[in-house]
């Protein structure tokens, strides 16, 4: 059913730390590896070794140059489904293939009833859904629903593949509907933010902002060199100043 549940019992989601993410793409490849054999399998790649390669990936990491208050830095930005509380991608679905689970809030696609009309991907402001040209159905992040409840895995591994793979601990998984959960406390402590709140989708995933650097962030432009000689100086130091000023 594409009607949204009145309220999800839990709000499972990810907390992504933009301060610590180093852009290594480990979450991207581990997501692809797990899910191309998991619930949304296969994640088709077309022409993977040629020009025009085109494949389905459920997690993409962008690299941005971020400038604010005269300081700039590089920010790596992982982008995947935010498992919104009011996702229009679900309500626009004409077949009921897209649905949001009442038990944990995870948004899923039933590949057996998806007709591949692509309307859900138009309805997502975040580009979280990718169409599989070969399978003719829409694919999206499942929050690794086939890992997090999987009794055959060690308890420590019952987290989404992207979270398990992150080498710097920039990805956290938990119940964001429970204010006492570790994920919620992290969001609280670090001022975690939602993406495009103005769209009104009420995303569950949160992004932790980059911390201000100790002693101030790197300036957008390097500081001018300090003169080594006083005004009116002559000789070697004056010559050094002239050379460096050019």
């Amino acid at each position, binding site marked *: 059913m594409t009607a949204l549940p009145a309220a999800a019992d839990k709000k499972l989601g990810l907390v992504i730390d933009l301060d610590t993410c180093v852009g290594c793409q480990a979450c*991207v490849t581990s997501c692809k590896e797990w899910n191309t054999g998991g619930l949304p399998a296969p994640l088709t790649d077309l022409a993977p070794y040629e020009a025009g390669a085109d494949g389905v990936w459920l997690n993409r990491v962008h690299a941005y140059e971020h400038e604010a208050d005269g300081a700039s830095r590089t920010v790596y930005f992982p982008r995947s489904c935010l498992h919104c509380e009011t996702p229009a991608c679900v309500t*626009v679905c004409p077949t009921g293939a897209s649905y949001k689970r009442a038990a944990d809030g995870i948004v899923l696609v039933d590949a057996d009833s998806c007709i591949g009309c692509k*309307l859900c991907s138009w309805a997502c402001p975040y580009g979280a859904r990718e169409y599989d040209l070969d399978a003719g159905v829409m694919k999206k992040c499942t929050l690794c629903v086939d890992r997090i409840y999987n009794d055959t895995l060690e308890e420590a591994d019952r987290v989404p593949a992207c979270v398990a793979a992150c080498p710097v601990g920039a990805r956290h998984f938990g119940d964001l509907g429970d204010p006492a959960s570790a994920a919620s406390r992290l969001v609280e402590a670090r001022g975690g933010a939602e993406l495009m709140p103005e769209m009104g989708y009420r995303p569950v995933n949160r992004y932790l902002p980059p911390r201000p650097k100790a002693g101030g962030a790197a300036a957008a432009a390097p500081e001018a060199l300090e003169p080594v000689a006083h005004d009116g100086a002559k000789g070697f130091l004056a010559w050094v100043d002239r050379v460096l000023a050019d």
Partner: protein
Amino acid sequence: MHPATSVIFFTTASGAGYGLLALMAVLGPAGLLPAERWFGATGLVLALALVTAGLLSSTFHLGHPERAWRAFSQWRTSWLSREGVLSVLTYAPALVLAWGWVIAEDTSGVFAAAGLAAAALTALTVVSTGMIYASLPPIAQWRSPYTVPGYLLFALMTGAVLLNALAGAFGIARWEWPALAALVTAAGWAWKTATWRRNDRLASPASPGSATSLGGTVRTLEWPHTEENYVMKEMGYRIARRHAAKLRRLTHALAFAAPLAACLVCLATGGAVALVAALAAVACQAVGIAIERWLFFAEARHTVMLYYGAEVA
């Protein structure tokens, strides 16, 4: 947004078909069109053929057309599902009306009631088509009070221009038909011009700063992938401003100005000259409205491109 040929054909062809169907379904029972077999058969078959061809073509872009029947199930939430249900429901009263007009040569009584029902369902179907686009928050050009009335007006406009040609061909021309076609064409022209004016002044619904939650200035350093992915191909279609300007001028000329002039020629003349002008209006409006619909997609911008270096959505 990527302009898919099947969706452009669907919305323009079924729009014209629904426009003609609604006009015949109202004007026939009102006694303004003759309850004559061959006129009724030609008009209603043309209308239903355009509608059916459009509906079938809309299934061509599906990944699984054989599952299209599932799209009738989610009418409680989905405008696409509502469009599907209403489009199929419309056939029932339309076929009853066709029975009366063609077999019984009678468009009164129960057939008149069927006509009104067909016209109402037709209007609701076209409203649903418009709402599919008007209900998408990421696309500001579509999520607009102009979208649904636009779809209704353009359906009525292309239908009225078709009816004018049909009436001319059957020698049942009255001054009302070219006058009606000219009137709705002028209204459509004004509406499209106002829509473009609004869209050109539209503020971006989000920014790279809000899309990433970072604020400040956010510039793309590197894409996550070296080639265009599905999201960029589907949502990232961009048209150069000078091409868009040229196509808008073509739309002004072919969809509105020329058909309007041709309808005025029909109004001023009669007989063979009027018929040629009426047919010319149909032909050039068909091309013009297809360009209009292509631009509707090509000029629509999606917020996801903010992640790929677009500064405004």
